[in-house]
Structures are given as C-alpha cells and as structure tokens.
C-alpha cells in the first residue's frame, strides 16, 4: 500500500489513540461500558490496522508469531491461576474475598486480574486468527478487488 499516502498518514495518527482507548476500556471496564473482551478486540484492531496498511512483514517484526501464541496461553493462565491463588489462600476457586484485602478491595483486585487475563487472551486470539488468514500466499493489487 505504498502509494496510499492518505491511508498511511491517517493510520499513523490513529494507531496510538486506538491502543490507548483499548487500555482505557480494559482498566475502566468496571466504571464504564466494556471490559476485557472488548478491550482485547480494540487493542488487536490497532495492530491489525497497522498490519493491513504497513504490510504484515513489518507488523510481525514488532509482534512475532511465537509472542502471540505465548500470549494466547498466558491470558487463560492468568485467569486460571487467579482461581488457584484464592484456593491457596484458603477460599473457594475464584472466591476473591480470600485475597486478603478489605472485602471490596479483594473483589476489585480479583476483577482486575481476571479481566487482564480475558483481555490478553482475546487480543492474542484475534491477532492469531488475523495472522492465520493473512499469512497465506495470495497478495492482491488494488484493482483485483
């Protein structure tokens, strides 16, 4: 897409705010609409926009395959281990009150922790699916669409 000057300029401007908005949705999900699922998708959209406009090769230089596959598992692990930690601390599985802060504080800590896990897995799966679809051979010119 080297000849699309407007697309490239607008993408440069947009990627930063999109990623920032993804983080906002992730960590503000308890107070506004959104949460880990939406934040993961929005965060992935920022990278996918970059990859679509500035070629997949440059995106993979920033976010390689192995890193994405690691994140896919890491998010689910964070979620699962949150439950294990509450069990070790003497509560039931995913019983945040066992985390040992004030009752409200424990709930918040638990929610932030599992939402982080959700966000990481959703982000990584979206990226993995995008890579899987776009990495395959055919590359089209503008006219072919």
């Amino acid at each position: 897409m080297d000849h699309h000057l407007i697309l490239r300029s607008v993408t440069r401007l947009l990627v930063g705010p999109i990623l920032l908005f993804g983080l906002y949705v992730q960590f503000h999900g308890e107070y506004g609409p959104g949460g880990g699922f939406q934040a993961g998708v929005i965060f992935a959209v920022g990278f996918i926009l970059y990859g679509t406009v500035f070629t997949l090769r440059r995106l993979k230089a920033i976010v390689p395959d192995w890193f994405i596959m690691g994140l896919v598992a890491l998010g689910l692990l964070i979620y699962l281990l949150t439950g294990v930690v509450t069990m070790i601390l003497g509560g039931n599985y995913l019983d945040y009150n066992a985390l040992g802060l004030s009752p409200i504080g424990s709930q918040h800590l638990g929610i932030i922790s599992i939402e982080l896990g959700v966000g990481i897995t959703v982000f990584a799966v979206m990226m993995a699916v995008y890579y899987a679809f776009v990495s395959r051979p055919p590359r089209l010119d503008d006219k072919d669409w």
Partner: protein
Amino acid sequence: MELALTLLLYLALVGTALAIIFMRRLFAVVILSGVFSLLCALLYIVMDAADVAFTEAAVGAGISTILMLGTIALTARSESLKFNPSAVPLGVVLLVGGVLIYGTWDMPNFGDPTAPVHTHVGPDYIARTPVEVDIPNVVTAVLATYRAFDTLGEVAVVFTAGLGVWLLLVNGFGSGASRRDSEQKDGKG
C-alpha cells in the same frame, strides 16, 4: 423521538440486508455487512445496552470485516451468477421465518417490568453489587464476580478457537511453512 429513531434504524437495517442480497461484488458485500453491524450497534445503544453495542461495533464491524476481507482475498472476488429459482428453499425460509415470528408472540414486550429477566436473579445482582463489589457497571460485576466460572469457560472457548484456527490454517507451529513447501515440491515431482 426514540420510536422514530428505532424505526429509521430498522429501515436502514432492512435496506442494508437487501443490498447485501442483491450485490454481486463480495468486497461491497463485506463492507455492507460491516455497516449492518454498526447499525445493530446503534440499535443496541438506543435500547441502552451499551456493553453489547460496544462488542457488536468492535467484533462485528471491526474484526469480522477484516477476516472476511482476508477470506475473499484467498478465494473469489465476486459471487457466481448461477441462480435456479426453486420452491423448496423459498418454502423453508418462509416456514422458519413464520415459526420465528410466531415465537415472538410469547415474548414479553420490550422493557416490560414483569418480564422473567427482570424478576429472576437480575434484581438480586443489582441490589447486591453496590454493597458487595462496589463498582458502577453491574455487567462487569456479574461477568467477573458472580459468574466468574462462566467467564472462565468463555475464555477457554476463545483460547480453543484461536488454537484450532492456528493449527488448521498455519499448519503446525514454526516448521509449518517449510513443511508445506516440501509437500508442494513432492506433489510436483
């Protein structure tokens, strides 16, 4: 005002759907399905379901559109013009549509305070969230605290789906590309 807005959005939704049916160029169809998702998101906003609207806009209009574009880049750019009018598909569509509309007669009206969804566990969650979790977004409280097991299952589903797509399309991890190349060479030789 709200009624007018809702009707306008539904009309636009039907118009988009008709355009999708009659369009032959798949690029236009994919973009229109993105428009369809955005109109759905607006409808959810009118119904005060901000979280659902958010998801619809991000997933339906964002990711799905990109994946569909990736798919038509790999397959075909225009729909084949084969069209055999036949009574059976039309009959099936009319029958299923009729059954669905018949089903809606038993549904409570939109916003009906006596609907099951407003009288079952919903009020309980709404009453307990400010005391027990103290966050303004009750959806997050239900999702992450009261129904944390369900959400764990959903994340596991997303994980499995991602893994499945990766294994099917990328053909193994790391060595996939080289293995595919050697298979092609074998096939030609």
